């Protein structure tokens, strides 16, 4: 098999992985620390994509659009937490699922009212639309490399915040034993707002990075949210490390499966079998993986130590 192609597909897997990580990090923190099932996480991703696209059209500056989009999503996240989610922490998961599903409908309609139902125009700035010659005949799109770079940088930053700062210590403590943290006099409400706001900002970051390459339209968040849930189940709920490694595993398995499963099946069994089973199996792979993890390691591959 062509070595260049394998390297390229590995890069594609990495790129999908870091994108999923940006979404999974916020979701897993909110779930792990606040014990809140937030189905509307994908809506924040959509909000990030719309705000960044809109600001880019208004200002003409991609960098400025990123900053404003990020700040805007952070703000939206904080408002959602203060207005809607605060009342849900003590309720059971079914109530949370219903309420955050309502938020999905609310955000999709709001976006449709503000920008219409049709996908809006979004594109790469000129200086990011080129390709980079990595080695031999391997050319990789610059923007996709940028996504990988940003994702890894965010992962590093998160690792630093979570394991080296006081805020991170509280977050870890909150994930392990919420009641104890509250009993020690920490303002848990403020901590929740901060965590949710940053989770929203990370989802927004994923959305604004996705804007130029995907269709920016109402409902775009739900398409990716399911994979994100798979990531946090595989990685272990509440664990940043689990979200990172889980996202890379899911990104790799999904991409390599889509790329090489059909040719592999064709070579090993028969071309007919490859044609028939390849695409179906490739789209199932990450769910099969999740089922296996749930069967053998129900707490995920990289669970949080302790736990409440």
């Amino acid at each position: 098999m062509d070595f260049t192609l394998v390297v390229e597909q590995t890069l594609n897997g990495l790129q999908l992985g870091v994108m999923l990580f940006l979404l999974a990090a916020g979701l897993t923190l909110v779930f792990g620390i606040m014990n809140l099932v937030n189905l509307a996480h994908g809506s924040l991703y959509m909000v990030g994509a719309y705000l960044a696209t809109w600001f880019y059209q208004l200002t003409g500056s991609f960098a400025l659009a990123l900053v404003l989009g990020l700040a805007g999503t952070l703000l939206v996240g904080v408002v959602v937490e203060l207005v809607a989610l605060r009342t849900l922490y003590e309720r059971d998961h079914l109530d949370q699922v219903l309420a955050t599903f309502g938020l999905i409908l609310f955000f999709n309609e709001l976006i449709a009212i503000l920008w219409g139902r049709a996908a809006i125009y979004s594109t790469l700035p000129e200086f990011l639309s080129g390709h980079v010659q990595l080695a031999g005949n391997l050319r990789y799109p610059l923007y996709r490399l940028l996504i990988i770079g940003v994702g890894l940088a965010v992962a590093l930053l998160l690792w630093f915040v979570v394991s080296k700062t006081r805020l991170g210590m509280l977050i870890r403590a909150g994930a392990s034993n919420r009641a104890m943290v509250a009993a020690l006099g920490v303002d848990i409400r403020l901590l929740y707002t901060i965590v949710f706001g940053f989770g929203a900002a990370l989802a927004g970051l994923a959305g604004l990075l996705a804007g130029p390459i995907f269709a920016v339209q109402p409902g775009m968040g739900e398409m990716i949210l399911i994979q994100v849930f798979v990531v946090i189940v595989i990685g272990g709920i509440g664990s940043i490390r689990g979200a990172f490694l889980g996202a890379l595993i899911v990104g790799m398995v999904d991409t390599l499966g889509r790329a090489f499963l059909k040719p592999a099946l064709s070579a090993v069994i028969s071309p007919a079998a490859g044609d028939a089973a390849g695409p179906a199996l490739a789209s199932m792979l990450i769910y099969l993986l999740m089922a296996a993890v749930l069967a053998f390691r129900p707490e995920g591959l990289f669970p949080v130590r302790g736990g409440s």
Partner: protein
Amino acid sequence: MKKTTGSTLAALVAAAALSMSFAAPAFAQQKVKIGFISTFSGPGGVIGADMKNAVELALDHLGRKVGGLETEVIYGDDQQKPDVGKQVSDEMVKKHQVNFVAGVIWSNVMLAVAPSVTNAGTFMIGTNAGPHQLAGEACNELFFTTSWQNDQTPEAMGKYMQDAGLNDVYLMAPNYAAGKDMLTGFKRTFKGRIAGEVYTTVNQPDYQAELAQLRAKNPKAVMVFYPGGMGINFLKQYSQAGLRGQFPLYSVYTVDELSIPAVKHAALGQLETRYWSQDLKNEANVKFVGDFRKKYDGKTPSFYGAQSYDGILLIDSAVRAVKGDLANKKGMIAAMRKADFKSTRGKFTYGHNHFPIQNFYLLKAVAGASATADPVMEVQKTVFTNYKDSYGGHCAMKW
């Protein structure tokens, strides 16, 4: 004596009941009721909005009177789900007692809706989906469509690429019934070498992995079917991957007036086949496109709109032919079979399975009139003239 009075009374009651039962439909006949089903929410909602706009424009053109009668159009949202579509159509037929059900974008929704409407003795006027079952063994005298049979469009593309002498064509489509039908239709007329055939997950947002595989195969041309939002993702990424200049891209139902505003220059040069285009120069189409732009601040209609506009005109022609006697279904069937209305595609006829026999054109996305304008789809050449679908042979209907 008593007995006679009783029977007289009974007769009177019966007569009264009879006259009332006659009076009721006579009263109802003052009004045509049309139930229009489409997708008005979710990502598919943009298509439904275009169809509804076109229906409203058709009503404007008819002075809000279909067939000269008071008209009520009830819109129903199928949410792109077959079960919801069937529920909505049942409600229209039973509760609202509509005379016609029209619309429906998706083939799987249509397969759930059409039989239940026609079984209830109500007309079904399809204005998009053309699943092969309804053109073949499941054809019905109460079912008409103003669109096409699914396979026809890719067959036209296959014919064009065959005639152009292309070889080593790489095919891509989402992995569901219509995706497979499209590629089957393409291969019915395209006999050259196929370099690869790839099915992707429905609504998958990222095609980077598949595009890398495509580049490695180094085909001579690429032919895809990616409707709706999938097409927007695919076109953007195809351009961004630098493949636009490398492998010529051909498509069906992927680039249209609804997706172009979201991709703009990434659509430039795209070749599609279609039975209709906004620049067709017949009188009805010039009026339709011009008035549509006037009514909906400069928006260009898509083929979804054109078909829906035609659907209302087809109903109008039928109601006119029976002079508003909506109980005369035989008369209306006979009238519709003549396709006697000013269609946006120009003159066409109906095959015996009630699917249009019509022309198919090669369209290209070319630069708009000004530097800032969006690309527009324009007719390049005629691929098929008076083209019939491939399933009519399985339809037992005769006329």
